[in-house]
């Protein structure tokens, strides 16, 4: 048992994440009456559906060792495009939705192509994307555009009952994206190439994996997720506004890191990132329940957590390196009879 824990030191961050979520939830339930209700729990999803969608895309990006800073701005741009097309151009939602989705996807594709073909740091390229998308959003309209459209109303207000509580359509969308993300990550060549690139990009190239194509696809996918999150955010706010989701890219990155994904790439899970988002949600909920605390405490708590997680990951890496240097060479390859079996997975 101990040995098994040893082997799976790389799974430790996600175990810590799950443990942390449970602890915080128990803490809230014991401290505040009404915290333990199923609706409070489901609200975590309702209020953070767009963050969950963003986190799925961002997980892939960070798994390759990259970063996508443009996602917050893409949300704003998508909300502006959707609001403008619906309210000013009077287009049907059935046209507006695909067009809005194309906005982020195209921007992601461009990001990916620049990163791959010109071999430029993702940080720089997506930083440019951040400014570009936000700027374009202002170009459409400086003012906020309120949306009054039956379809958007329907998406915003429909309640899907679960027992005596409910979720929104956005939650369903988010969960579908999560399932697709998990499937992509673990059951497709694309997903495995993502992990391989994060482990060692050079090796991935030499192993004959489609590294370039995959990198472009990752940023495209992240852009798509950002647009989809933008739509979900628009359902949530029922407005388009160039100031929407300001700095949200950082919340997402924080969720992914707290969710156990290493910023250096190669290690992490989509499901972990979802829990990362929920942890952010629980912090917010606790602060709301507390009543007197300023909401800025959320930021402080997130900051502390991210720092703790990064230090924790660093310690794991150092420890595993030490262990390797000390012990790894002891595996005797001539020993062909007793297999070194330790079941896992």
């Amino acid at each position, binding site marked *: 048992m101990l040995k098994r824990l040893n082997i799976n030191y790389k799974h430790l961050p996600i175990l810590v994440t799950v443990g942390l979520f449970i602890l915080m939830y128990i803490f809230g339930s014991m401290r505040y009456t009404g915290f333990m209700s199923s609706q409070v729990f489901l609200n975590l999803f309702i209020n953070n559906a767009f963050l969950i969608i963003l986190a799925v895309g961002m997980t892939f990006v960070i798994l390759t060792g990259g970063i996508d800073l443009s996602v917050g701005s893409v949300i704003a741009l998508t909300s502006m495009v959707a609001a403008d097309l619906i309210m000013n151009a009077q287009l049907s939602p059935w046209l507006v939705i695909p067009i809005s989705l194309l906005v982020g996807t195209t921007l992601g594709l461009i990001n990916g192509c620049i990163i791959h073909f010109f071999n430029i740091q993702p940080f720089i390229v997506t930083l440019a994307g951040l400014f570009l998308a936000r700027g374009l959003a202002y170009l459409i309209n400086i003012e906020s555009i309120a949306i009054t459209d039956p379809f958007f109303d329907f998406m915003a207000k429909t309640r899907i009952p679960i027992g005596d509580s409910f979720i929104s359509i956005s939650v369903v969308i988010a969960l579908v994206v999560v399932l697709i993300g998990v499937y992509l990550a673990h*059951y497709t060549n694309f997903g495995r190439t993502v992990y391989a690139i994060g482990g060692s990009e050079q090796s991935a190239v030499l192993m004959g994996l489609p590294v370039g194509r995959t990198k472009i696809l990752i940023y495209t996918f992240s852009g798509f997720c950002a647009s989809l999150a933008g739509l979900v955010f628009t359902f949530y706010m029922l407005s388009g506004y160039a100031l929407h989701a300001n700095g949200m890219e950082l919340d997402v990155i924080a969720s992914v890191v707290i969710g156990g994904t290493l910023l250096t790439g190669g290690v992490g899970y989509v499901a972990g990132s979802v829990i990362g988002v929920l942890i952010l949600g629980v912090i917010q909920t606790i602060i709301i329940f507390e009543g007197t605390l300023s909401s800025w405490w959320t930021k402080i708590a997130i900051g502390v957590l991210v720092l703790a997680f990064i230090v924790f990951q660093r310690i794991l890496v150092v420890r595993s390196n030490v262990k390797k240097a000390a012990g790894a060479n002891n595996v005797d390859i001539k020993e*062909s009879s007793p297999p070194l079996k330790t079941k896992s997975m």
Partner: protein
Amino acid sequence: MSAKTPMLRMDGINKVFPGVKALTNVNFRLFPGEVHALMGENGAGKSTLVKVLTGVYASDGGTVTLEGKPIQITTPLEAQEFGISTVYQEVNLCPNLSVAENIFVGREPRKRGRIDWKEINRRAEELLSTRLNLNIDVTRELDSYSVAIQQMIAIARSLNVSAKVLILDEPTSSLDTNEVEQLFAVIRKLKSEGLAIVFISHFLDQIYEISDRITVLRNGNWIGEYMTKELPRLELVSKMIGKELDVLAEASSNKRIFKGGESFLQADQVYKKGKIQPFDLNMNRGEIVGLAGLLGSGRSELARLLFGADKSDGGTIKINGKKVSLNSPKQAITNGIAFSSENRKTEGIIGDLSIRENMILAIQGVKGWFRYIPRKKQNEIVDEYIKLLNINPPNPEQLIKNLSGGNQQKVLLARWLITNPELLILDEPTRGIDVGAKAEIQKLMLSLSEKGMSILFISAELEEILRTCQRIAVLRDHEKVSELENDNGITQQDIMKEMAGGM
């Protein structure tokens, strides 16, 4: 064997990198069921040839023929599809993926469109145990295993593709003796199954143990193809370094008689794993000791241990009879050791500083950065050394990047001489500089040693070593194999025999 037709031919291959002609008209033939060693010193172009073959680099001319058909390989993936697989020196797998996945990633077995993990693990286990006699847990991450096992897994990955050609580029450089034997067992098995194997290694013993045929490269040129059985070691070495045997038979002209001084430095069983085997070395005052060996035999590695540039894994070093620890260059410098690195451009000179600033660096470093040496004092020192070493132009404020190689080297030398060391380690001080400067540096070495300085002189040019050194330590395959006294008319050939070994 030679009656067979080659499975793969490369003809007239050229490859140019910016500023370097890495391959010039290189030919290469591979026969099924043979191990073909690709030999040459560091930088000869071995890896480049392999990378051209496997589509990592595009060639700048030449043809590749596989089983009689001309082919064009432009990506590693295409090479794999042709059945050509490579295992590189650094394990090129992903440390974060499981063993099984490393073998199958990119071509995973699928069930209803999705990756079938059970099948992957089953097949990986089977492949490792039937073809490589390796029974390990394939679901563990790659980096939980030793480099030797990772190497085997890399081979398994390439076998998994319908392999015809297996290329092993220095697979053994970080393996110990047992692990090498295990690897060789696998190579022999695969060879008997009809695979054509390219084997690159610096270890001559291994080449003679495992290979059937040898192709020699030198400076990117094709020197020849030989059957291993018909090529004596000495001839192989002379082809690799490009010296005819008869030239090397001339006796040494060193008439200097060493007056002898007491011991300055004694190294006792000092070693660093994977770099240099345990060695003993005694340096007397006023003595020049030569360090000979092929490029990559561990010469610089040994020197770096003495200077504390790398930390040794064991052994003791005594200076003036007292045990010292040399864990950093700073400690070495304090103990009177100076080291002029072979990478003049990258580790030595700072191009945008002047001659004066470059010279003063080491002494300022020793004194500590806060005890600034007054400008007047600096000028005195620098002028003295410019005169002593005949540095041209004799202008202390000239930027060093504008100097010729020989003069840059002299500035470097001056930098260390200013610290007034008792032991001076010179790693290839004469490489790439003109004949005149070479002679001057040699003369300087002799006069320094007469004043009592010990010098450890690393050089690829044996005649230079014979001309200047009293004793010659020879390295082979990361091991100090012998020590020769340079007094009774020994020849370059004698040294080369030691470098080649096995006789």
